[in-house]
């Protein structure tokens, strides 16, 4: 009750209100620009807010955190360039919706789902933190490995047409992920004696190249007439649509919260798993997945925003960041004199401030997320001859901005050509990115599991559950698929 009052007290503080709103506005628009990632925006704000007192600083950072996760979906829907890794799965059905002339409706729905996802994540953060933190702390290497393998099953979901081509793409991605010096060994692998490759291949650079430059080159190669966008009568989806998909929203949010709470997993993994779960469980969807199914938009957008609350749980209770942004956030909090451990009990005021800032940010997400959509949609009315060069230039600058390294630009161009070639020969591009994203999780935990094999402590009570899920999911999907076809 006291915590609740604390949150309420913080919500009505003008500085929390102003700075959380400002942060959300910044986050929504920064997130939409490829190359300006949430981690980068938060890192920059941390340095800017260094001298500020903790209330405005934390409010601003929380606002940005909420805003960027949604912002990334805008460019994913409009241009098939995810503004952030968490928006990769949004593009699977969001972009086809835009190609059908429903970009504005897709962005409206994405905003509402992001809002609901964020609120459910905050709810979990406020009321379920001790329980979720306990579960996530028992996760062992073998569980992470099984989780990675579960996420790899997503290849089946994102391979349109040919599973073999999807598997081929995923193995290319996983192999490219092996380039560079692995975290557990001091050996350079497959770097072709190029020092630049010692650090490995950034999957954000690959993502910009494969999705952004690859798509732009593909658009140049085909002579499609420009898609006429429907004049949206309403951007906010009807309440009937939201209520109809409420079970999917809740299940996606639960996935988001849980995956977000796992150290190192983050919003991108949450969104991918949410999308996969939706594809396996949703039946009688009006449009098939991958061709503009609203369910394919609802699941990842809810999951990636719910992961915000999830990622904050281990950070606030155990001092372990859930993803890259919370790692930066942890550093920011320590700069403001906050010790790492058990923030929730040691600094209840700060905990309620974070909750309040998140609530306000999610409310402003509705405002800033639903406004400006018509302006964004106008981007698609720009002639292809003007828009495609702009996208290619944005890809160049975006790839450079990640590490301010010119070799990243060359790598991005290489991935752009690879993306174009794969698309031209009808190989799915998403599994390559999936492989790159999952590589670190799979390799580091696989090696640990092999080394610890035989030690009973390597298993947790979750291991059999995850193992059963790994075996059962493809079988259930196959049976359900057969029934659907019948």
């Amino acid at each position: 009750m006291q915590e609740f009052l604390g949150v309420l007290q913080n919500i009505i503080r003008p500085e929390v209100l102003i700075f959380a709103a400002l942060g959300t506005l910044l986050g929504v628009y920064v997130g939409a620009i490829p190359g300006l990632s949430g981690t980068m925006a938060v890192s920059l704000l941390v340095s800017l807010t260094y001298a500020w007192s903790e209330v405005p600083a934390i409010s601003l950072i929380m606002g940005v955190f909420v805003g960027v996760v949604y912002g990334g979906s805008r460019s994913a829907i409009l241009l098939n360039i995810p503004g952030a890794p968490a928006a990769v799965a949004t593009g699977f059905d969001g972009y086809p919706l835009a190609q059908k002339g429903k970009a504005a409706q897709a962005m409206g729905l994405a905003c509402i789902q992001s809002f609901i996802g964020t609120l459910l994540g905050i709810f979990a953060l406020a009321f379920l933190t001790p329980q979720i933190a306990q579960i996530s702390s028992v996760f062992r290497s073998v569980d992470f490995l099984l989780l990675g393998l579960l996420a790899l099953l997503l290849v089946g979901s994102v391979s349109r047409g040919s599973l073999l081509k999807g598997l081929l793409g995923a193995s290319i991605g996983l192999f490219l992920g092996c380039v560079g010096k692995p975290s557990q060994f001091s050996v350079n692998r497959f770097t072709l004696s190029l020092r630049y490759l010692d650090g490995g291949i950034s999957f954000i650079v690959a993502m910009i190249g494969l999705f952004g430059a690859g798509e732009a080159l593909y658009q140049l190669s085909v002579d499609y007439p420009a898609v006429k966008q429907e004049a949206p009568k309403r951007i906010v989806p009807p309440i009937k649509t939201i209520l109809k998909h409420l079970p999917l929203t809740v299940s996606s949010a639960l996935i988001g919260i849980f995956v977000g709470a796992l150290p190192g997993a983050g919003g991108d993994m949450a969104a991918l798993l949410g999308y996969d779960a939706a594809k396996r469980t949703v039946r009688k969807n009006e449009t098939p997945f991958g061709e503009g199914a609203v369910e394919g938009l609802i699941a990842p957008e809810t999951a990636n925003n719910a992961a915000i609350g999830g990622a904050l749980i281990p950070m606030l209770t155990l001092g372990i960041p859930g993803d890259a942004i919370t790692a930066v956030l942890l550093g920011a909090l320590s700069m403001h004199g906050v010790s790492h451990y058990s923030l929730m009990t040691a600094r209840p005021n700060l905990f309620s401030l974070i909750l309040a800032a998140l609530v306000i940010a999610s409310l402003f997400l509705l405002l800033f997320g639903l406004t400006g959509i018509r302006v964004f949609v106008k981007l698609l009315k720009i002639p292809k001859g003007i828009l495609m060069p702009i996208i290619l230039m944005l890809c160049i600058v975006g790839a450079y901005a990640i590490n301010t390294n010119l070799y990243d630009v060359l790598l991005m161009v290489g991935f752009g050509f690879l993306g174009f070639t794969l698309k031209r020969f009808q190989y799915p591009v998403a599994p390559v990115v999936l492989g790159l994203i999952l590589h670190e999780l799979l390799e580091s935990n696989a090696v640990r599991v092999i080394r610890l094999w035989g030690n009973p402590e390597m298993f947790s009570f979750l291991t059999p559950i995850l193992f059963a899920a790994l075996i059962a999911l493809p079988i259930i999907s196959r049976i359900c698929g057969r029934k659907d076809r019948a």
Partner: protein
Amino acid sequence: MKRFLQNFTSDRIFAIILLLASCGAFSAALLLQLREGGIGAGTFPLVVASCFLLFALLNVVFSFRKRIDAPRGSLSSVLWIGALLLGLCAGLLLHVPLWVLSPVFLFLASFVVLKQKWLPSLLSASVTTGLIYLIFAVLFRVPLP
């Protein structure tokens, strides 16, 4: 001979290229594993490269077993020039500053390659370059090349 060559459609050639790439990946991973030995830096790449090789092999087999697809049509010259410009732009960034390269690339791509009118091309080139500088360099302090 002509009939034999007709079997090699672009899809099949691409499948063969992927197979060759997978052979390269497999041999590199095998060499690394032999050098490192045991459970080391080469183990995981070897497993992945084996899968890559297997899938690429199956892909070639399936591509030759299925009927020949309708020809995809040749790639337009617009794409080739666009791709060349992109590669050139990325390569030249090592030597030429972005504020020079960006408007030139955008104008050339829009006006010359994609046959847009000169005024919208010029406007989009200058506005985009300005916005890129404003957002990246001024607002986010990214030191652009």
